[in-house]
């Protein structure tokens, strides 16, 4: 019963996320953030509900979410009526592809590093903490600048 209600909740959240993505395509980027948020939260919620081992498909889900966001933004950008150089489309395609692959690699690295036993010493602990601080700081720096 509990599993059934959780499944319905996750399905409803996923449906709402899809609707928000359609709304983003129709009305603009402000809806895109909400759609990505809901998709990510649905995925994390499903993991928390299922429990168990590490999901090996997590890097694919992460890269897929990022590529979905970038393609949606590109679709919205192309609606402006201007005559563009033919090379711009190919360069943006390449950029999204590179970003997607790099994101996939980064997510895979994260999942791979999580397989390292925690008792490998203080160095790993410090490295993990430093990585968290750097990541948070980069996020703050990026949003500010």
């Amino acid at each position, binding site marked *: 019963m509990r599993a059934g209600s959780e499944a319905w909740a996750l399905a409803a959240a996923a449906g709402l996320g899809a609707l928000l993505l359609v709304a983003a395509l129709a009305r603009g980027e402000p809806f895109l953030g909400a759609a990505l948020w809901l998709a990510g939260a649905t995925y994390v919620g499903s993991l928390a509900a299922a429990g168990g081992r590490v999901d090996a498909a997590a890097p694919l889900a992460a890269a897929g979410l990022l590529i979905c966001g970038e393609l949606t933004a590109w679709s919205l950008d192309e609606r402006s009526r201007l005559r563009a150089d033919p090379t711009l489309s190919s360069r943006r395609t390449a950029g999204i592809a590179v970003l997607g692959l790099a*994101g996939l690699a980064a997510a895979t690295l994260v999942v791979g590093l999580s397989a390292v036993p925690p008792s490998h010493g203080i160095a790993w602990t410090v490295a993990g903490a430093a990585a968290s601080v750097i990541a948070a700081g980069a996020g703050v720096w990026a949003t500010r600048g």
Partner: protein
Amino acid sequence: MTGVRAPRVAAYASLAAAGLIAGLALGRVEPVALAAPFALALVAAAAPREPRVGLRLSLARDRAVEGDEVVLTVELEPDGAVQRYELLVPLPEELAVDGGPARALRLRAGEPRTVELTLRCVRWGAFRVGPLLVRARDALGLRAWEGEAGDAQVLRVYPSEETLRTLVPPLETQVFAGNQVSRARGEGIEFADLREWRPGDRVRRVNWRATARRGSLWVTEQHPERNTDVVVFLDTFAEVRADGRSTNDRAVRAAATLVHAYLERRDRVGLVGFGGYLSWLVPESGLRQLYAIVDTLLTSDVVHSYVLRGVDVLPPRTLPSKALVLAITPLLDERTASALLDLRARGYDLIVVEVSPLELLAPDPAAPVSLAHRLWRLSREALRWRFEQVGVPVVTWREGIPLAAPVEEVNAFRHLVRPA
């Protein structure tokens, strides 16, 4: 330039932070893996620096005629590479560009680039082209820098003119030499009369045949060629505008045509813009006067006003005596009609060219409104009758008809009716 982030950058940042926090809170690695690509995208968004691009704007020419095409050249000199450089030329609706006024291009470091846009001059007027709105973006569109660049260029589009083979000759001429045959007697080409010789007459004017017949000296008199003063009176109190067409547009084109034609005959031409904004040019001749009048016509837009205005506010030299006054008006405002009747009462040679607004105002099929339309047309007929009663010819210039047609109509009227 002002730096701008794409709205999704904030969403990526919050996703990355939320993923890290969720990973810590749930003790799972998947949320952190979900956050990693978005953190990478944030680094990609933070990496680009503001580009420096030199921009120069120039027009192939600063004067054109309606229907002409003028090339706008944008020269770009980038210091560094710009993945996507967008530029937009803000244009008034009177200037059109095929493919739109916006372009997007890629700039390579140190490589100048030139963009040409062909502007089509749809309507007359004086326009400012530029400065451009520019935006430089990275390859993914995560960051952008926006601003203005280039100096504004002024483009004057003159009204198109029609060809007129004949003009309305004024009743009186002036004292300077010109192309109009005067009613006075003197030295010229056109034969006027014969008279007896008087002391002071030149020998070459003696008509020997008449002298032989009559036994005393008789001389030939001719009509001299003199110039005339013409004042174009443009009514800018009101207009009718529909579907991009306007009575004021046609009136300005007619004024430009008549001014050019009379100046070519070495007449002196002046201009009075009578409306919410009063403007005038004293009659002069020559090419400089043509440019002065046409430049004034470019600013002849209708300005709505409730001020009561008469011709007495105009300087006396604007309306010389014996001048031919050509009034171009849609006859919509009573103030213009009163001013013109005042001019007639002062003895001016007046002709009214009515720029008909009827083609722009289709009557509504509903009965009460069509009755109002008929009453309005009757009132216009009554106004025309008032002019004709005082000997002022009123000719209607309809859309699609050449301007030469009402000019011929005026000449025909003058052959039948000799004004006082």
